[in-house]
Each structure stands twice: as structure tokens, then as C-alpha cells.
């Protein structure tokens, strides 16, 4: 706790904010200039789980801006070298390393383990893959990119807000990357840090997220301009399932609210905690009246899909205090086990 004391005392963070950071799972695509700024700040702040995707090895021409790496690491893979450094910054951090480039084929599987994606790539094509995958699996992503001494930052696909394609539809015209256009370390450093800052705001639920807005920062004259997406719908409260609050399995076990298991009878693993009530999704329509509308209900299933459907159904029946438990029955059991064996630690 002492590690995070200076941020915990901030208004809007507190112990509960620190728990949100600990429960969050962030994927950083690209461990280059932007990634080297994003990663250490997220790790040091107490994010619970960080994934790093990059198939590149460290080159000497990276060192002036990719400040996680040093001379003796030239020739080694960026992901594993970065991971070692991050765990030193916060031993409580779980790092998942993907020593490969993101592709349209592997993106969905890699993204499935994370709640928030950070685009720290230098490639327009991959950005569309990130955008498409985030749209398909309903995850927000924090965009950052630079051109010489200028940087752009935005948040896409956040709570029904616009996507990258909404502002930059794909076309065949290309934009130059750092190898072609040149880059100063402080430029990627600042833009990466702004991305990390947006990520923390999203996780903590504080401030104004750059959704529906494009920030352009000119580092040569220190001007910042924010452009609003006027021609696409404003971030709106999403239609159905996304409007439910998602809580971690650890949070779900706090207090004595009902944990509603909507899996069919006989599905394993069995979750036989005292607060669990088992009503399969297939019979929920008939049996919902046994539930108390005034009480908070925390719903889970095997993977998180049926729990959303169940929440939709209950919301239509007038239930208001519904929360979804992230992951599934297995995660809930794991959380229960570690709650019993460990004291809370960050």
C-alpha cells in the first residue's frame, strides 16, 4: 500500500481507485517509442495485468527514444526485455508477453484477455486491425501516433463513442512512420504518456476521456488543439449490454450481494458459495420473480456472454442494480481461493 500512497490520497482515486487499477487488464500493442512511455507508467501505477505485443528485436537505432532498453540489450526481443523491467517496477504486476506481431488472425484471441487496448504501433494497417477487433469484441482503445514533432491522441470505441474508421476511413493513401519521417524521443515520450493518462482515467472513471475528440499536440510551439468529431454520433449510452457495470471477481466477493449463476444446471465448475443463487438463463424469464428487485445482483456465467443476456432480460423486467462479473465461474472460484489464502495486497 505504501507504494501507491501518494496516488491513493488523490481525490477521485482512493483505495477503491487503486483496486480498480489492480483489477484492470491492459494490452499494449507495440513496445517501441510510444510503448516505452506507456508501459512503465502503467506498471508503476499498479495496473494488475499488462500484455505486450511486439515481434521486434531491439536495434541500436531504437535506443534514442525507446528508453526502456539499453545498449547491451541490442538484438534481444523487446517484449521480454520490457517485461523484466516492468516487473521490477512493480513485483505485483502480471505481465503477458506476446513475442509476435499483431495480425488480423491473432488479434481476437490476444485481446480476449484484456479490457483496454493501447495502440502504440507505427503502422496504419495494424491500426485498422486494432479498430476492427475492438469493435468486434466491444473494447475501447487508446490511440496515439506521431508525425515528426506532432502527436495525436484519441480514445475510440469507448462507451458507444466513435471508432477510428469513423474519423479516418481506410484508403490506399499511406502515412509515413518513424523510420521514414524521423522522430525525437521526447515526442513519443509525451504522446505515450498522454495515452497512459487516458488509460488511467478510463480505468478510474475520472476526468474527461478523449472520446469523440482528437488531440493534436505540436511539440515545437507547445500548442494543443482538440478537434471534436462533429459528423459522427456523440458518445451515447449504449443500447443494451454495455451499460452494465462490470466488476472484477474480487469485487464481486466483497459484501453479501447475491451472485447469480445463470449457467445451465450441471455446468462445471460448480460454484457453491453461500451467496450464489442458481437460475439458468433458459428459465430466468419464468423464475425472475424470486429475485429481489431492490437488492444488488451480481451476475456470472461461464465466459461472460450469457451473463449479459441475463442482465438484459432482468433490466427489461425492471431490475436496476445489476452488475456483471468479469470472466466466468472459474475466475470467481480463483478469486475466492486467493481471498482465503492471501491477505489483500496490491
Amino acid at each position, binding site marked *: 500500500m505504501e507504494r501507491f500512497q501518494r496516488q491513493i490520497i488523490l481525490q477521485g482515486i482512493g483505495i477503491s481507485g487503486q483496486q480498480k487499477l489492480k483489477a484492470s487488464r491492459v494490452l499494449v500493442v507495440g513496445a517501441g517509442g510510444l510503448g516505452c512511455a506507456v508501459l512503465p507508467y502503467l506498471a508503476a501505477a499498479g495496473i494488475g495485468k499488462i500484455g505486450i505485443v511486439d515481434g521486434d528485436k531491439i536495434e541500436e537505432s531504437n535506443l534514442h527514444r525507446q528508453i526502456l532498453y539499453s545498449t547491451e540489450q541490442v538484438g534481444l526481443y523487446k517484449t521480454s526485455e520490457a517485461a523484466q523491467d516492468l516487473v521490477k517496477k512493480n513485483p505485483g504486476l502480471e505481465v503477458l508477453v506476446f513475442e509476435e506481431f499483431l495480425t488480423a488472425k491473432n488479434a481476437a484471441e490476444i485481446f480476449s484477455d484484456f479490457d483496454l487496448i493501447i495502440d502504440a504501433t507505427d503502422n496504419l494497417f495494424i491500426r485498422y486491425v486494432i479498430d476492427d477487433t475492438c469493435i468486434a469484441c466491444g473494447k475501447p482503445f487508446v490511440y496515439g501516433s506521431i508525425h515528426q514533432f506532432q502527436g495525436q491522441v484519441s480514445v475510440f470505441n469507448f462507451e458507444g463513442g466513435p471508432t477510428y474508421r469513423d474519423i479516418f476511413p481506410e484508403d490506399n493513401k499511406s502515412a509515413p512512420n518513424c523510420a521514414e519521417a524521423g522522430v525525437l524521443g521526447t515526442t*513519443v515520450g509525451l504522446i505515450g504518456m498522454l495515452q497512459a493518462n487516458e488509460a488511467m482515467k478510463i480505468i478510474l472513471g475520472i476526468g474527461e476521456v478523449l472520446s469523440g475528440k482528437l488531440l493534436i499536440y505540436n511539440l515545437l510551439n507547445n500548442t494543443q488543439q482538440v478537434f471534436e468529431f462533429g459528423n459522427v454520433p456523440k458518445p451515447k449510452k449504449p443500447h443494451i449490454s454495455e451499460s452494465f457495470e462490470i466488476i472484477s471477481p474480487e469485487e464481486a466477493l466483497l459484501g453479501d450481494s447475491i451472485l447469480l449463476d445463470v449457467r445451465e444446471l450441471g455446468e462445471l465448475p460448480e460454484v457453491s458459495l453461500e451467496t450464489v443463487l442458481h437460475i439458468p438463463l433458459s428459465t430466468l424469464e419464468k423464475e425472475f420473480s424470486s429475485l429481489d428487485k431492490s437488492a444488488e445482483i451480481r451476475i456470472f456465467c461461464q465466459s461472460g456472454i450469457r451473463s449479459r443476456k441475463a442482465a438484459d432480460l432482468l433490466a427489461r423486467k425492471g431490475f436496476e442494480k445489476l452488475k456483471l462479473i468479469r470472466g466466468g465461474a472459474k475466475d470467481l472460484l480463483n478469486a475466492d481461493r486467493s481471498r482465503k489464502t492471501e491477505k489483500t495486497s496490491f
Partner: protein
Amino acid sequence: MITVNYFGNIAEAVQSDSETLAQKSMSLTDLLALLDSKYAIGHFPFQVAINRKIVSKNQAVTISEADEVALLPPFAGG
């Protein structure tokens, strides 16, 4: 006067971050055609913002004096 701000590789092509045009009023379509004839901006992907609001390039809109137009290309470095 109409102010036009350039970013990214378009600013490079124009060799300036900003310029003011003497025109008092013109349609967005005419403005983009004028800039294309001067700087070949048609080669770049970009979005247009008027007074910091992004609008469709094809929108029938008149730019008036004191309006600020920005050409926003996607960046790709990182």
C-alpha cells in the same frame, strides 16, 4: 480572411503550419479544390475540421470570414 491550419505530412507538403486566405467566403468544396491545385493535398488521406469541429469533406458548407479550417491527416509514427 480564412485561416487554414495544416498538420502532419500535409504541413510538410505546404511547408507551413498555417496560412490565411484573402477570400471572405467560399464553399468547402471550392476551398479544398483551391488547396489541391496549390499543394496537391488530394494525395493525402485527411479529415477537415471547421472551427475545431470535424465535418465531412463533401458537406455543403460555406466557410466565412474568421472561420478556422484545419486539415487533419492520420499520423503513423510511434
